[in-house]
């Protein structure tokens, strides 16, 4: 009964989306305000219905209703409740329903809360959102029905994949999807603005909070995913340039560029074409990402089951939506006038440089990810991985960081090069100092990229605080603090990455209980190996005492064995200190009663994710600051009237 209700809700939502689209189209074309008045309620109802459908799917999983095919193939009654809940989106159909739900709810939010946008653009935007949703509703209903039944219902489910039984699954995918799919709002805004030719500062001011919101969530989602992979996979890596990881990075790069571009448009009425193009590109990257994950054309550890039929469907949607949007762009952008002019030495120029560098990195990641596919069309197999991406994206990212540091210190529209260099004096001195320091510490022992990364991270970190100097801190707007914290977060994250690359110490050792291992200032003593049992696993746990000039702490890395399917996973033991993390993994038993141990000391590695959180926090402060200013201005206007 629940499954049928869910399916019905989905069908209703799809019909409402169609209605919404038709009403918006006819209403705008024929200038019929009474038709247009129904668009917003339709969008809200659509959002509510998709949310209901998703809630019902969650209910089915929580109840372990094995008569539903999806639950039977992806869940098990013995799973802890958290993983039953999170298992809803740990599969193709469920995550596709999540996608559609986020689109529907985002559309409803735009219908309910967007007040600043000009009416016709607002309607066009909602029409665009409905148009995109329709394709994905069709995909769900005709090709990936999450509510399909199975008869006879099996006694219990198949899905107990051990890797998914982790709190990371509860957090990483939903946040990522909220960000990914939240960018559809920016896409719809761009379509709406192109249709009604309203690409101006007011439009940008209306679009900005939506972009910020999606971007914050995407940042958090990627950060969480990176940390999850880091502690789960047992090798100490935090980014693998895997095609699916790249598929989440590309929308983020586009969204970051869009974020900055929309601010230029909002405050300076410049970069119109850029802003619209980036809004289209950002969600397009989300859609391309979903295609790559679900079609099986690229080898990836994250990929869903290969299904060319589904792949073709999504490819069709891609061609329709992205092709359509780009065609609309080409057709209409000519009618959009050029924005206000600016000089070479100006903040606008640096923001254009920022856009360009981000877009270049995006292009390179895209090309690198697709390159194996391209060469295979010629019968040649190649692999493109970390060595290429690090070497290519790294230097450009460093240049980007420098632009990020200089930008806020340059005036809008026109500034003097001499004045700018005076403001940059302090960070430049720090840079030189760091260069000397790091050279002394590690010349010849670390690569050039980590070396430069450390220098740039330190000096850019200092420079990002510069906008606050000589300012009354209590009267500084909240969004300025947001910018400072976000930029500082970038520098912090870079510092963590560079430190991890440069200074990580790895030790592989085969030890007997009673042995002490010394590495990187730590004394690690293997006490014993003992068997353990959990809900649905058995394990061998190593009890180890670790100390560094002080009292020992006991850590417990484990090697876990699951019965169905037969799998061995490793649960790394992580010990976090202010200056880094000790990462210990228990391997196999080797001859002589000894056990394989992998030990890493990773200085300042946690800064990577701390930086990510700071970036998201900065974004949240900026969002709050702008919204608050909007309310204050409206309140003041009302009070004055």
């Amino acid at each position, binding site marked *: 009964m629940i499954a049928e209700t869910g399916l019905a809700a989905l069908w209703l939502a799809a019909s409402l989306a169609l209605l919404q689209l038709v009403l918006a189209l006819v209403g705008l074309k024929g200038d019929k305000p009474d038709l247009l008045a129904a668009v917003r309620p339709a969008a809200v109802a659509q959002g509510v219905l998709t949310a209901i459908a998703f809630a019902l799917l969650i209910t089915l999983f929580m109840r372990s209703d094995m008569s539903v095919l999806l639950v039977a193939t992806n869940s098990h009654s013995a799973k802890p409740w958290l993983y039953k809940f999170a298992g809803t989106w740990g599969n193709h159909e469920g995550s596709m329903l999540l996608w559609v739900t986020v689109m529907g709810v985002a559309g409803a939010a735009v219908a309910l809360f967007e007040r600043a946008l000009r009416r016709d653009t607002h309607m066009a935007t909602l029409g665009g959102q409905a148009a995109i949703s329709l394709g994905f509703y069709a995909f769900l209903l005709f090709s990936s029905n999450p509510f399909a039944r199975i008869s006879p219902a099996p006694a219990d489910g198949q899905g107990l994949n051990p890797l998914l039984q982790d709190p990371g699954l509860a957090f990483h995918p939903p946040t990522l999807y909220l960000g990914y799919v939240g960018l559809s709002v920016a896409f719809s805004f761009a379509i709406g603005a192109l249709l009604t030719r309203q690409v101006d500062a007011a439009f940008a001011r209306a679009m900005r909070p939506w972009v910020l919101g999606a971007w914050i969530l995407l940042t958090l989602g990627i950060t969480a995913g990176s940390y999850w992979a880091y502690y789960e996979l047992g090798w100490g890596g935090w980014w693998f340039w895997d095609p699916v990881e790249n598929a989440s990075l590309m929308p983020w790069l586009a969204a970051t560029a869009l974020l900055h571009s929309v601010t230029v448009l909002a405050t300076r009425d410049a970069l119109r*074409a850029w802003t619209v*193009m980036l809004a289209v*590109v950002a969600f*397009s990257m989300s859609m*391309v990402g979903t*295609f790559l994950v679900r*079609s*099986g*054309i*690229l*080898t990836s550890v994250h990929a869903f089951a*290969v299904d*060319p039929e589904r*792949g*073709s469907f999504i*490819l069709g949607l*891609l*061609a329709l939506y*992205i*092709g359509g949007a*780009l*065609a609309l*762009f*080409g057709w209409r*952008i*000519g009618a959009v006038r050029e924005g206000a002019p600016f000089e070479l030495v100006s903040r606008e120029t640096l923001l254009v440089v920022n856009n360009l560098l981000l877009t270049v990195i995006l292009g390179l990641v895209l090309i690198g990810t*697709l390159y194996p*596919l*391209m060469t*295979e*069309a010629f019968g040649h*197999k190649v692999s493109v991985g970390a060595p290429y991406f690090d070497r290519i994206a790294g230097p450009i990212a460093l240049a980007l960081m420098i632009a990020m540091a200089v930008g806020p210190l340059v005036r809008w529209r026109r500034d003097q090069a001499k004045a700018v260099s005076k403001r940059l004096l302090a960070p430049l001195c720090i840079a030189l100092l760091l260069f000397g320091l790091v050279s002394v510490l590690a010349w010849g022992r670390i690569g050039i990229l980590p070396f430069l990364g450390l220098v740039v991270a330190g000096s850019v970190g200092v420079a990002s605080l510069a906008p606050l100097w000589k300012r009354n801190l209590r009267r500084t707007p909240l969004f300025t603090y947001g910018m400072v914290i976000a930029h500082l977060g970038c520098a912090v994250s870079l510092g963590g990455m560079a430190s991890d690359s440069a200074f990580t110490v790895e030790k592989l050792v085969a030890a007997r209980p009673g042995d002490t291992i010394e590495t990187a200032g730590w004394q690690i003593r293997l006490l014993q190996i003992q068997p353990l049992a959990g809900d649905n696993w058995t394990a061998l746990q190593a009890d180890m005492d670790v100390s560094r000039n002080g009292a020992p702490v006991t850590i417990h890395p484990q090697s876990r064995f699951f019965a169905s399917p037969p799998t061995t996973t490793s649960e790394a033991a992580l010990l976090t200190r202010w200056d880094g993390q000790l990462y210990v993994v228990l391997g196999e038993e080797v001859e002589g009663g000894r056990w394989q141990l992998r030990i890493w000391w990773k200085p300042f590695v946690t800064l990577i994710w701390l930086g990510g959180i700071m970036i998201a926090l900065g974004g949240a402060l900026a969002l709050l600051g702008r919204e608050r200013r909007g309310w204050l201005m409206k309140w003041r206007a009302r009070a004055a009237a």
Partner: protein
Amino acid sequence: MRKLLIWLPLVLFLGFIALFASGLFQPDDRIIHSRLVGQPLPAFNLPAAASDRPPLASSQLAAGQPRLLNIFASWCVPCAAEAPQLEALRAAGVPIDAIAIRDARADVDAFLQRNGNPYARIGLDARSEVQIALGSSGVPETFVIDGKGRIAYQHIGEIRADDVPMILDRLRSAQ
């Protein structure tokens, strides 16, 4: 100039669609083939893997007559499945040598006891060194070696019943 740049993204995108479409409709080939097909066999000299068969050296595969080189392991499930086909080939007069990967004498003996022993010689490659030197990426695989010690053909995966005629063909053309 601006006109060009405005339409460039669409043109590039259409290129990507073509690429994706080709990727979807191309047969999925995740198998890694050895690049040494057509090249001489790398030199090796392996100890005996089974108690009742002599050890294997690469020179013994260049003795004038084309031979099959079967890469297998006692812990490999499809290797047991191809045993009847190998036996059929041996009965047809084909000389077959083998290399056992990451194996131990006792396990190889047990495997041959269970599945039959069509091999003339079996070498033991305990650390996959010869497997890597051959460009082989898994078990089972079968190489057709011509009389001069060159690799004529690589068959990846177990030999099915309908593969047997093809293998005989390859052996004939390697004369």
